């Protein structure tokens, strides 16, 4: 995921040879495109172990709450995507020549909530497509429209942060990210039980 994110960052850096002020306007959107694409890579692999040799039968027939499997998948995917983000965000700022004069805590909060929202939607889609044949194709097709409100809200938050606007001006978008994360997380937990049934 890190290599993939780094590759897209490099492509963007080479493709957008524009004025520094202009790239600063595009940068939040570009950053979330990289994060979304990188997440798809992780989400495609999320249930690959369970698909091999019907390994999922070991826990679908066991006396365990299947919703906890969804929660554990969200947590592991979130950790992996966040780790790869940490690794490619530094080159992203270096290659695109972006100034880092903003609150790192607020940036970390946006990354956490935005990635969490993408991953909670993505894990649900990954679970829905668990038995599907064209799974690798279906995940991005279903994820991109579903996660577009997240991408929009995350881009708005990041853009406002880069422009050093006070948090009170963009906390509405942050709430949307948080709501997506919590609502889809809870919804996934509740419906996963039925989703994994054949």
């Amino acid at each position: 995921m890190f290599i993939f994110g780094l590759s897209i960052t490099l492509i963007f850096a080479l493709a957008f040879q524009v004025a520094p002020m202009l790239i600063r306007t595009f940068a939040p959107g570009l950053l979330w495109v990289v994060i979304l694409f990188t997440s798809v890579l992780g989400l495609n692999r999320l249930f690959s172990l369970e698909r091999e040799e019907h390994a999922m039968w070991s826990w679908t027939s066991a006396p365990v709450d299947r919703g906890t499997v969804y929660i554990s998948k969200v947590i592991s995917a979130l950790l992996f995507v966040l780790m790869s983000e940490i690794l490619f965000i530094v080159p992203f700022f270096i290659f695109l020549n972006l100034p880092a004069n903003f609150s790192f805590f607020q940036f970390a909060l946006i990354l956490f909530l935005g990635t969490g929202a993408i991953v909670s939607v993505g894990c649900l889609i990954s679970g829905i497509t668990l038995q599907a044949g064209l799974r690798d194709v279906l995940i991005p097709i279903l994820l991109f429209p579903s996660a577009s409100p997240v991408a929009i809200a995350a881009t708005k938050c990041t853009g406002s942060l880069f422009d050093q606007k006070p948090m009170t001006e963009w906390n509405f978008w942050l709430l949307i990210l948080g709501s997506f994360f919590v609502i889809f997380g809870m919804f996934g937990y509740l419906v996963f039980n039925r989703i994994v049934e054949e």
Partner: protein
Amino acid sequence: MNLQVTNLSKSFYHSPVFQSFSLKMESGEKIGLSGPNGSGKTTLLKMISGIMSIDSGKIRIGENDVNPDEPDTRKNLYYLGHSVGLYPGLTGYENLTFISGLYGKMNPNISNVLIKVRLDSAHDKLVKFYSQGMLQRLKLATAIILDPDILLLDEPLTGLDVDGIKLFESVIVEWNELRKTMIIVSHNSDWLRTNTDRIIELKQC
């Protein structure tokens, strides 16, 4: 433990596999399930085990109805499927530890069970390198460790050599003495006739 299936219906893409199917099994009973391909033998076991949803009807184990939202209703049964159903990237020992943990078995005697099914020499081998017969033995080991009251055995003899079949038959005798309820799917009618109390022949809808 009793098992009761009442008016079970299941369709795939509007093509019915079961229509108002009912079955009643007393504790300690052994049923053989046979029938042509596509008659629903595996589907029935998957529905009882909770792997597959049902369209309508009721499955009752002991005093409880099987309900996907209540995991505890699945604790007294084990489905030995004809697919592997184990993590290929883990060793046999690790798979057994993982599954016994799921069933709340805190200190399972995995090493002894592996010796019993003669897989002790392969306990640290990845499951993806197991032969078909070794996989069946490992699944048998899982069933022995979990020690459920109801066993759903789907083609349990597939891939087993003569020794493996003898081992499996001896385990079935032990389970029978412990009054475990068993449904065994097999295409071998002679074997079913010898080793089960009664045979149910499923026909395509």
